[in-house]
């Protein structure tokens, strides 16, 4: 598997085929004397900002904590065991509702979009 071509930036779906984001990052565990093991994929604006540089990454992390509270300081991770590559996209055996990935969209829905009639 070519990680850059076949995994990074691919569309991620949850168990009910809901689009939850793109593979913004790939996390590998460094082990002494053994090849690095893919442990998780990362999603979210913090991971993306870090790809632009260390400083943008810090700004985004601070912004996320100030807006969403402490638990948003770290990017969202999905264990690689739960992920499955079906050619073009990545399907994850999780419920997006259980994760905090949609936290900002839910906040937007409850506080802004939901308030407008006919939403």
């Amino acid at each position, binding site marked *: *598997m*070519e*990680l*850059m*071509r076949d995994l*990074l930036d691919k569309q991620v779906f949850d168990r009910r085929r809901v689009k939850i984001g793109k593979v*913004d*990052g*790939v*996390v*590998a*565990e*460094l082990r002494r004397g*053994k*090849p*690095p*093991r*893919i*442990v998780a994929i*990362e999603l979210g604006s913090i*991971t993306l900002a*870090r*790809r632009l540089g260390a400083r943008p990454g810090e700004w985004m992390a601070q912004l996320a904590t100030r807006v969403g509270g402490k638990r948003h300081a770290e990017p969202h991770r999905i264990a*690689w*065991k739960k992920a499955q590559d079906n050619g073009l996209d990545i399907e994850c055996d999780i419920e997006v509702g259980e994760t905090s990935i949609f936290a900002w969209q839910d906040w937007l829905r409850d506080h802004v979009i939901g308030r407008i009639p006919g939403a």
Partner: protein
Amino acid sequence: MRTVNLEHLAGRRVLSQRGKSIGHIEEILAEQRGDELVVTEFHVGIYAAFERLSASTIGIAMLDLFRLRRRDGLYRIPWDKLDISDPARPRLLCPMTELPGWKGQKDLRE
């Protein structure tokens, strides 16, 4: 558990032990071993002329399109020969001569 984000390696310049740039990381290969997906090798593209362009994916695509990349222009670096603890500065852990794809490149005098 020490972890690293592999996406930071994309397009990074790889330095030889003597600090000389040998090209940019283009791809990271991984294989399924048992129930683990592990990194097996890193591909570094050799573009003597278009150094800047080869740092971005669209640059590589253009170079490939116009056949500007030498067919053998690829180092396949095994996982244990590249130190990626600091993804911003991947370093080679073995001399140049041991790299597969090395054919005594004239312009990369050691």
